[in-house]
């Protein structure tokens, strides 16, 4: 049996843990730089506050309805996430943290559970008791069905925070009430293509021939169909697969017009990408570098350039160096830049790199190892490529930040005696 436990609107609920004054109020959380709404608590959702819209567009609506607005308090979320995962881990013999608020469980030798529904509630209660975070729990014979049950536990009427798929009746009941794109692995594009075939919901998809699906949509959809029918296809290790693309992007706290400042920001992103790439043991073959003004400006400016390395690399100096090659075709005078970023898009495994006998290796593992160790030990940015100098203008804007109640002594909650 597999399980998926995840927190209900995690960021927004995390804000309520140490601030009792907003527990019954609508709360929204903004993304980096207070740009967009990224989390909406259930009370705010009922008011009709949409997700993923720019904050400035709904500012007056939020003010009118007395909605509490918060910047992303990553220090707090990271701590609460860790606490939540610690509790969940106690309830199974295999545990995989899938994201900041989601965790897969795999019950391999668990004969002691005979009522999964009750067991789900035991987990929910424990997490609530220790962290004050509400979670949804789904169980199923495959990862995809556990994910579907989790969806049902939170979103479908008639469920109380726990849902179990353990026979055909429960499988049909849940899948037929899920839209195609609610199924794990079915994105918007794929969902549209499937609906052209006349499929309406998850149950329709489960009833397709896996072979036909493979012929038309590839192996991923074939696996999804099999998983929806209770045949495990996804390996435990596969869900934690290496990322195929690694990006670092950010909007500026204040607009940037100066070429040097933009270059420094891009260099810093390239450096972050390099560090992330090394962490998963990959090499970058192609680097995307882009910068833009705001899409809400009168005239929108966006430039994106791809740089291809002769041989794939994870060397910070090479990735940062690539910025210099492409910078002139990105920067333009008079543009007030709002956002920029760098992404490694064609990643190769450093383990299986094809060596070219005529070119010297561009990688420098000893230097990079030293670089990573220093930054790991003394904090990111302790050693940095000179061009990537920090600039206050593009550090994160967080105007509505709540206290870091669990990580900073000067911000612990006040308790009235």
């Amino acid at each position: 049996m597999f399980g998926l436990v995840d927190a209900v609107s995690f960021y927004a609920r995390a804000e309520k843990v140490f601030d009792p004054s907003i527990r019954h109020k609508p709360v929204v959380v903004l993304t980096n730089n207070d740009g967009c709404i990224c989390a909406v608590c259930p009370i705010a959702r009922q008011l009709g506050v949409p997700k993923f819209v720019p904050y400035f567009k709904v500012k007056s609506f939020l003010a009118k309805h007395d909605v509490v607005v918060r910047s992303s308090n990553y220090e707090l979320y990271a701590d609460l996430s860790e606490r939540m995962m610690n509790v969940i881990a106690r309830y199974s013999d295999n545990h995989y943290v899938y994201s900041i608020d989601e965790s897969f469980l795999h019950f391999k030798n668990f004969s002691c559970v005979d009522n999964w529904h009750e067991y789900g509630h035991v987990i929910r209660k424990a997490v609530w008791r220790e962290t004050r975070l509400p979670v949804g729990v789904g169980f199923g014979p495959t990862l995809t069905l556990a994910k579907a049950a989790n969806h049902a536990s939170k979103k479908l009427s008639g469920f109380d925070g726990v849902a179990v798929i353990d026979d055909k009746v429960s499988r049909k009941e849940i899948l037929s009430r899920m839209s195609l794109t609610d199924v794990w692995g079915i994105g918007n594009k794929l969902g549209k293509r499937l609906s052209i075939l006349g499929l309406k919901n998850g149950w329709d998809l489960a009833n397709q021939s896996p072979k036909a699906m493979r012929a038309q949509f590839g192996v991923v959809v074939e696996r999804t169909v099999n998983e929806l029918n209770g045949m495990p296809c996804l390996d435990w290790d596969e869900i934690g697969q290496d990322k195929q693309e690694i990006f670092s992007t950010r909007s500026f706290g204040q607009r940037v017009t100066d070429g040097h400042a933009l270059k420094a920001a891009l260099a810093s992103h390239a450096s972050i990408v390099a560090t992330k790439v090394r962490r998963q043991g990959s090499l970058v073959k192609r680097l995307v570098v882009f910068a833009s003004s705001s899409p809400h400006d009168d005239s929108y400016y966006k430039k994106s350039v791809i740089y291809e390395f002769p041989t794939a690399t994870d060397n910070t100096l090479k990735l940062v160096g690539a910025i210099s090659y492409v910078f002139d075709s990105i920067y333009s005078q008079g543009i007030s830049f709002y956002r920029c970023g760098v992404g490694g898009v064609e990643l190769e495994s450093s383990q299986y790199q094809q060596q070219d006998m005529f070119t010297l290796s561009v990688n420098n593992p000893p230097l990079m190892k030293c670089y990573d160790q220093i930054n790991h030990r003394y904090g990111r940015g302790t050693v940095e490529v000179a061009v990537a100098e920090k600039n206050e203008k593009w550090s994160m804007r967080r105007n509505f930040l709540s206290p870091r109640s669990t990580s900073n002594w000067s911000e612990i909650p006040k308790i009235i005696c």
Partner: protein
Amino acid sequence: MKVIPVYIEAGISGFESPAAEYRELNLSLEELLLQHPNATFFGLANGRSMEGRGIFNGDVLVVDRVEHISNGSVIVANFNGCFVCKIIDTDNALLLSASDEHKAIKITESDDFQIEGVVNVSFRLHKKLPVLLSCLG
């Protein structure tokens, strides 16, 4: 995880410390004071109503969400949108103070009330620390 560092010895090393084999992990305040670290948070006491139980203005409260609550426990609760530290009278639904100057508070249906955790440990800093003073504001 905490570990005992054992240094590699390289040949010329003088005399080995006679205490080397008796080394243990150093004392940890957390280990002593936190029963359920994962479910514990800290708060700063603000006010004088709990002095009879040894909790003074500016003390640090260690709040344990897992610890069992019984009649007479010192608890931290959300009371109408504020964290308060009081003694819970579970029989009569009262929040009691440990001071003659503060009356008992009756918890009614219309109040927003949830117990956050139990205070089994609180500590006082006899020399004020600037980091903690700033949150009393």
